[in-house]
């Protein structure tokens, strides 16, 4: 619970800081990179957790992104819910928006950032999986004895 709260806290304040930093072009990119770095360090610290708990942490942390992405992918839209969901999806992933703004390709009528935002829960999931599988360096028993 503490880990999830920590990830939400970092993500929400990164959302605010990165959005405000877009007022100073360039600073937003620096903060987006720092966000990825901090999140990477946070996720790596989960390396010692069981696979099941790590998945649970990821799903709860990224629940808003997963829900907004799935609604945006629906083939129909009730009362414009699909359009609002994409708005919210973009807001949720604001910490990486400056990096997406560096891309300017259009594929099948949609800009590349559209596809990347829809796939963002999957991208986060893959990064999360890779980072939690990397073993943390552990102290050998002799070193622990020495430290004692």
């Amino acid at each position, binding site marked *: 619970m503490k880990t999830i709260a*920590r990830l939400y*806290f*970092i993500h929400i*304040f*990164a959302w*605010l*800081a990165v*959005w*405000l*930093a*877009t*007022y*100073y*072009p360039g*600073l*937003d990119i620096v*903060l987006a990179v*720092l*966000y990825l770095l*901090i999140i990477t*360090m*946070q996720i790596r*610290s989960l390396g010692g957790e069981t696979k099941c708990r790590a998945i649970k942490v990821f799903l709860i942390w990224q629940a808003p992104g997963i829900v907004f992405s799935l609604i945006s992918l629906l083939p129909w839209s009730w009362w*414009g819910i699909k*359009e*609002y969901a*994409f*708005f919210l999806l*973009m*807001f949720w992933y604001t910490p990486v*928006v*400056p990096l*997406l*703004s*560096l*891309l*300017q*390709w*259009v594929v099948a*009528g*949609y*800009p*590349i*950032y*559209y596809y990347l935002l829809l796939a963002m829960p999957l991208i986060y999931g893959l990064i999360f999986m890779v980072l939690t599988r990397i073993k943390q360096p552990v102290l050998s028993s002799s070193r622990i004895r020495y430290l004692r």
Partner: protein
Amino acid sequence: MRKRDWQLWFFPVMTLLILVSIYFQNQATLNNRDSLTYTYLLNAVQGRLGYGAVGNYGNMIDLQDLEPGDILLGGYPECAYGRFSHAGIYIGDGQVIEGYVDLGITQQPVEHYWTYSEICLLKVKATPAQKQAAIDYARSHLGKLFYPVAFRPGERIWNCTKIVWEAYRQQDINLESNGDIWISPDDFYDSPWVQVIREKSI
């Protein structure tokens, strides 16, 4: 302080620093009750957050005599930013360059402006060469990222109004004179650089 605590407090501290910096740079504007920031906040308090009640209002305004470089404004009832929520620059052949959250800066047929309940066509007081340069500027940004609350500075993050404003600003025509931190379609309507061709409210 524990080793990982800086990771937790880095973004709250940055948020505060940037907020204070923006405030002090724009103190006069942000304290002005007519500013867009004030309008946003006032509407948010009253529960109006987005672009209003979307629908097909069928205004059927005459689009026949639009010329390249003209500006189109559209709005729905209960819009949070003012009378209008959307803007686009007409580029000829029934096409308009505008911005949407999913399509980015995009080129679309002009007829969809008939869906708005508030519609206005504006002619910019500019030479044909300036208008063409503004269109070329907007066209060179097709596919760029749209962010609903994009601030005025920068050329990577856009919204529908900012791309039109910047396209003309590059030609030394500033369609927004309040010096606010963002641009709204209503700024174009109030600008001395434009004249209303026609407008309609449903």
